[in-house]
């Protein structure tokens, strides 16, 4: 079930303040955040956020299409490089 409309979208309060401040200051500063669960709001468009993926901060440039998604969706937490191919496996031995 979705979230009640009455409450509005969720966004970490501290992050929200920072975003508004950055928007007013017209600065190109990257905002670091751990709040992957925050929603991308229209005010963020054009800003770059550094979203933590558990290990490091992934820079996310927010575009118009991203509004409504969560920040975490743009910062992958898993690192999958694929399985070793058969010919490579033989060389190791």
């Amino acid at each position: 079930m979705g979230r009640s409309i009455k409450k509005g979208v969720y966004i970490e309060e501290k992050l929200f303040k920072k975003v508004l401040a950055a928007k007013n200051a017209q600065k190109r500063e990257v905002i670091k955040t751990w709040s992957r669960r925050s929603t991308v709001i229209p005010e963020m468009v054009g800003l770059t956020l550094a979203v933590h993926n558990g290990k490091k901060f992934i820079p996310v440039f927010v575009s118009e299409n991203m509004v409504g998604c969560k920040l975490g969706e743009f910062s992958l937490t898993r690192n999958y490089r694929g399985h070793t191919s058969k010919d490579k496996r033989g060389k190791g031995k």
Partner: protein
Amino acid sequence: MARIAGIEIPNNKRAEIGLTYIFGIGRSKSKAILEKVKVDINKKVKQLSTDEVTRIRKYIESEEIVEGDLKKSLSQDIKRLMEINCYRGRRHQRGLPVRGQRTKTNARTRKGPRGSMIKKKK
């Protein structure tokens, strides 16, 4: 034979079932449409009068998104997800399940036949 929403020609089935031959209309939507335009659900498609068919056609054209338009909007939605480089978009690109299903086993619908993954990537 009735021609509704372009190419669809449902045959001698009940109107409720016949409408579901249109992409984008299932049982519940079909029922709702027939109720809105006041056509008996149990009437066979071939028994429908021209007037009734026109009413259905008009309603679908004005109220519902079906067939080509629906397919287009669906693929656009997926394209948008892929362009913004979010998790769901990446899953679409890789041809893996998008909604958090397990992939250790199963997921064959998305992945395709076993062992064909390498071919699919190209």
